[in-house]
């Protein structure tokens, strides 16, 4: 399969092929026109993973498993949300929280996780309206 290359801000040059792409049909809020992403996860970066935009290579987001922050994190999407991603069972989804780590703010977004169906590679930022989780849950002192 043909390999493509992008020049990213965080990782330098990254090679990918079509089958690696994750498709956000509606983009994500604030970046609605960006549809193609890569999920970058390397052992040396654990526990971080990264969502790297292919359509706009300067853009990437650090991600953490929300259960690292809240061990009993409840991912309870609506039926419409699971249907949109073709998920038979919410338990098969990959669920990640976007991390904000700057001088001003150290937090994770538990309210609107990124949800990927690993079987068809469809993804969306899913708003858990009834969850009571925060968009800016502070990262606390525990590693």
């Amino acid at each position, binding site marked *: 399969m043909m390999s493509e290359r992008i020049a990213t801000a965080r990782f330098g040059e990254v090679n990918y092929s079509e089958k690696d792409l994750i498709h956000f049909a509606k983009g994500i809020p604030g970046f609605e026109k960006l549809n193609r992403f890569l999920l970058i996860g390397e052992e040396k*970066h654990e526990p971080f993973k990264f969502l790297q935009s292919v359509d706009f290579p300067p853009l990437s987001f650090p991600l953490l498993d929300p259960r690292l922050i809240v061990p009993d994190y409840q991912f309870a999407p609506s039926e419409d949300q699971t249907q949109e991603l073709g998920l038979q069972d919410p338990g098969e989804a990959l669920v990640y929280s*976007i991390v904000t780590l700057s001088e001003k703010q150290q937090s994770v*977004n538990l309210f609107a996780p990124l949800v990927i169906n690993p079987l068809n590679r469809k993804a969306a930022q899913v708003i858990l309206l009834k969850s009571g989780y925060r968009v800016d849950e502070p990262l606390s002192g525990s590693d």
Partner: protein
Amino acid sequence: MLVFTRRSGESLVIGADIRVTVLAVDRDQVRIGIQAPRQIPIHRSEVYEAIVAQNQAASQSAMPPAELLSRLKGR
């Protein structure tokens, strides 16, 4: 912006399959009903905007993974 004046019980139609109805008006509050296809997400604007703002804040830095890790451990 298109501006309409509507009374309680009156509607607007957007395209073929979205209908917005003013259900009730009470001083400075308006109760609105929306009929739309299920795949069209509808949110209070402040909810959506909070997510936009958080996504933009998270995207501001292209900090290398090693530095992110040291910041995480440093907390």
